[in-house]
């Protein structure tokens, strides 16, 4: 795989949320608005980038038997760095996201990338993987946060969409709304993927037919 394929694989084809359904805890917890989703995603990207880079650098040095505690220590260190940094320079958002920032440590998607990708690939490929997976995760959180914010509060990024008279729809503010919205989003993603797949097979078929016609012309 070249680097853009690595990126697209992380961003779309193997999207942490849409395809692997990992990292559901922050997904359902903080996506009450698009802004919360974005910053939660941004914090995750930073941790993922740091852990992927370091894990890739020390690959081959860490003995196989102790790789998991070593990875977790690396991840926990980066989570604490992001936690302190947000506390210092983004104090308000730090208060909003609260507990979910330290909980990035146990986001299995991050340990998953360290184990499945960074420990076997070069530093630059691992960075591309981290940015792709992280961007896909952020995109998913923002999309779900945006849908819930629009349906729940009639706003997007804090700006009214349906006017001031829109009543709060508690269902979408609460976790059940996250599950329902996520279900519809997953259905939409599957529809897009299927139509892409169909177009691809159709294209392959046309190519084959053209080749056959060309071959027949040649034979004559």
């Amino acid at each position, binding site marked *: 795989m070249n680097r853009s394929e690595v990126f697209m694989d992380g961003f779309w084809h193997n999207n942490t949320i849409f395809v692997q359904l990992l990292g559901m805890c922050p997904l359902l917890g*903080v996506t009450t608005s698009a802004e919360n989703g974005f910053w939660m995603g941004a914090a995750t990207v930073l941790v993922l980038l740091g852990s992927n880079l370091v894990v890739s650098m020390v690959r081959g040095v860490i003995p196989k038997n102790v790789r998991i505690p070593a990875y977790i220590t690396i991840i926990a260190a980066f989570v604490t760095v992001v936690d302190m940094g947000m506390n*210092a320079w983004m104090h308000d958002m730090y208060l909003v996201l609260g507990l979910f920032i330290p909980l990035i440590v146990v986001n299995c998607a991050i340990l998953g990338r360290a184990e499945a990708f960074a420990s076997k690939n070069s530093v630059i490929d691992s960075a591309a993987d981290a940015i792709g997976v992280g961007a896909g995760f952020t995109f998913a959180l923002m999309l779900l946060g945006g849908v819930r914010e629009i349906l729940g509060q009639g706003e997007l990024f804090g700006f009214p969409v349906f006017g001031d008279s829109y009543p709060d729809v508690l269902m979408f503010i609460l976790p059940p709304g996250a599950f329902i919205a996520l279900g519809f989003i997953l259905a939409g993603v599957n529809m897009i993927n299927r139509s892409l797949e169909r177009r691809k097979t159709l294209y392959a078929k046309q190519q084959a037919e053209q080749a056959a016609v060309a071959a027949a012309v040649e034979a004559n």
Partner: protein
Amino acid sequence: MKFEKDQLQMVLALFLVAVIAAALLGVTDMFTREPIAMAQKAALHRALEQVLPAYANDPQNDEVEVGSDNEEVVHIYPGKDEKGKLTGIAWEVVAPDGYSGSIRILLGLHPDGSIEAIRVTDHRETPGLGDGIVKNVAWLASFAGKSLLGTAWAVKKDGGDFDQFTGATITPRAVVKAVRRGLEFYQARHQAILDAIGKADGRKLGMQGGKQ
């Protein structure tokens, strides 16, 4: 016990990872300690502006400490007008029984013990549910003007005067309880608080006198 070579390697690898992680955290702490303190001070400043009646001094500068019944030190932030007359006082009360962990609340009172306003300064409540104690402006405003006497200090579900939130009763219940405890503290200790503020004033005047 024989110490195998690969065992040594494992210990060494984990040791090194831990050392590097610790160093990274140490450096980060060095860079963030001051900005965090400043951000907290700025956040407290914004909160004080919201909970104290109009004032002209720097309440964080005029902070005094008063002991409470359980021998904790309470930091009191007094608001004063241009002439140095006390307009209100604020301090932080803690609700230890929030839905997830403690809730810190800044409580602002008039000198007569009635509430000017309250603001939540730190909490770990569920986004979208319990965080109404931060976002629900009408609910926060319902504390204004209330005193210890003449108010039923409980949520409506428990027969009190304060709304609970849909899907979240524990959080507002904890806040109401903590505010009530704060008012009881003021009732019991307001002489000590006023004395401490007066003494701090006297000290400052004395210092100014000494300079002249």
